[in-house]
């Protein structure tokens, strides 16, 4: 099956910032992304878990965004503007996609 090269960007970000990240992505014309829930984790600021929490603070989400390689820089700039002062992790992986016309 015919596949096409692309990039998979994964942004793990604090829940209270999710809305701002989505807005920033849309402003940068990145309209395709998927948000996955996160149960817990650990980082330089210690461990945490969502269990029993009711506030937004103290939670994270993972935003997965598949883009054509030439759009990665725009995406990273947009994401970084939101993330800059915040905790969170961004990784970029090479991938192949079906139906390239969608990206």
């Amino acid at each position, binding site marked *: 099956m015919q596949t096409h090269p692309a990039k998979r960007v994964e942004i793990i970000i*604090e829940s*209270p*910032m999710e*809305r*701002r990240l989505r807005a920033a992505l849309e402003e940068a014309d990145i309209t395709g992304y998927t948000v996955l829930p996160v149960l817990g984790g650990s980082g330089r*600021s*210690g*461990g*945490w*878990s*969502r*269990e*029993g*929490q*009711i*506030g*937004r*603070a*103290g939670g994270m989400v993972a935003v997965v965004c598949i883009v054509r390689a030439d759009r990665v820089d725009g995406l990273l700039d947009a994401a970084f503007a939101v993330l*800059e*002062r*915040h*905790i969170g992790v961004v990784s970029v992986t090479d991938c192949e996609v079906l139906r390239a016309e969608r990206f």
Partner: protein
Amino acid sequence: MDNIFALAQENLLSPIILSFALGLAAALARSDLTMPEAVAKGLSLYLLFAIGFKGGAAVAAHGVDTTLILSLVAGTVLSFALPFLAFAMLRVMTRLSTVDAAAVAGHYGSISIVTFVAASSVLTSQGIDSEGYMVAVAAAMEAPAILAALWLAARRAPAEALAAGGGVAAASQPGLLREVLLNGSLVLLVGSFLIGMATGAEGMAEISPLITDPFKGVLCLFLLDMGLVAGRGLRENRTAVAVGALAFAVLMPLISAAIGYGTGLALGLSAGGVALLMTLSASASYIAVPAAMRVALPEANPSVYLTLSLCVTFPFNLIIGIPLYVAIATGGA
């Protein structure tokens, strides 16, 4: 004096407190007892809806008296003013950075709705009436403290904050104010208050089997969860908080309660209303304010403010504060 001890003891043996203690103990012992996030959120939606509705229905029943507006104004002022006091105390009592101190101060100006709910349920148990609109006062006290905190961070820490890209920018962040004023729990509390006012006794009769009868039991389950979360917080952040900060977290509610007491008397609230205003003043936020701080003051360390608010001040108010405030307000002390 006897009265306080009697109250404290009765309070200690209430299912509510013991449920909290159970959660706390379980988490400290590293039990894997947990409540799913969705269930905890569901319980909190129930509590907000119930307390809001009941407050509104009470206002519908007793009419709006002239103190209502004054109380709302007083609550707003308290919420905005208390952070300045808290900030000053933190600068003296702790070595927290300006940004951390400002963030903590914001928590103590705002309120904890579960603490309010617990106090209401103590009043109900003891047959003490209170103004239904205290729910609206609680709502009014949620947000102003956040502005005070941002202002403190921006004024007092220009260098620090600016270096970090900062506080000033944050305070002027588009959308933050709107986000705070429209945060879910505030909207639900105010909305159900208005629904209760609009539908009054008739509405109350229809849904009271859900929002009145099982209320205390649900509160127990919710406090079990609060205990679990607080215990986990204590375990993970034991070292995040110094002795000075701990002392602050116990002293501040007492001072705030005293200020709330004076304000309540000045407003001419009933004894129950005074107890609730003391409780609101004494309580510290652990939902709305932390979320706003993560957005606007990300440099502030959440381990500090969450530990103080949720793991120290909340249990302190629950176990010692509330019976004390009720005793004082009802002249029992």
